[in-house]
């Protein structure tokens, strides 16, 4: 949950949330001075039913769950 924690800690300067056709969002986080790009796909962000579908840093997948969360 590295990228999710990055969002939770507020340790970034730029956040982009792109809505996907299935209703999930791809969140991209960047921090000035940090060359890495942090991305995750999430459904129901900040809700009890929140599911992180995948996370990646610089295009390298960290977590790869079934898109349905099962």
């Amino acid at each position, binding site marked *: 949950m590295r990228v999710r924690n990055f969002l939770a800690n507020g340790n*970034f300067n730029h956040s*982009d949330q792109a*809505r996907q056709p299935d209703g999930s969002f791809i969140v991209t986080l960047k921090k000035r001075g940090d060359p890495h790009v942090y991305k995750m796909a999430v459904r129901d962000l900040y809700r009890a039913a929140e599911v992180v579908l995948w996370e990646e840093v610089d295009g390298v997948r960290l977590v790869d769950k079934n898109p349905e969360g099962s």
Partner: protein
Amino acid sequence: MSSGYPDYEGGKQKVYLTPEWAALIGVDKTFTATFTYAIFEDEAVLTYLVPAGKEFYVTQIGYSSRAMAAADADKDQVCQVEVEVDTDTKAYGGAHGGGFIVPATPIKVIAGETLKGTIRCFANHDSFVGLAVVGYEVDA
């Protein structure tokens, strides 16, 4: 400084506005949300839950709407923007093509509250809509 006078050199001192200082020390934040090929009433949303011990201040809101196809470029590119803290609306905007809002008083979002920005497409053709919420985050 042993003299007790402020440690500055004449002519090099500067007074910063808080947002300017925030950018200087790297606590500025920009949130963007986009929707490509949006149709009537499609919306792009951004959300941010302010972490414990922090406060976020919104200083600028910018938004844009445009046609995806050249054939629609001269038509109305209407969009509407809403910025909320938890469920309370703090700012509305709407325009043909886009615009910006600079709150006279920064919109304050305290720890545990959720900033939400929404831009809705109200054009009758495939559009791109985008919203940017800019501010800074400091210790509470």
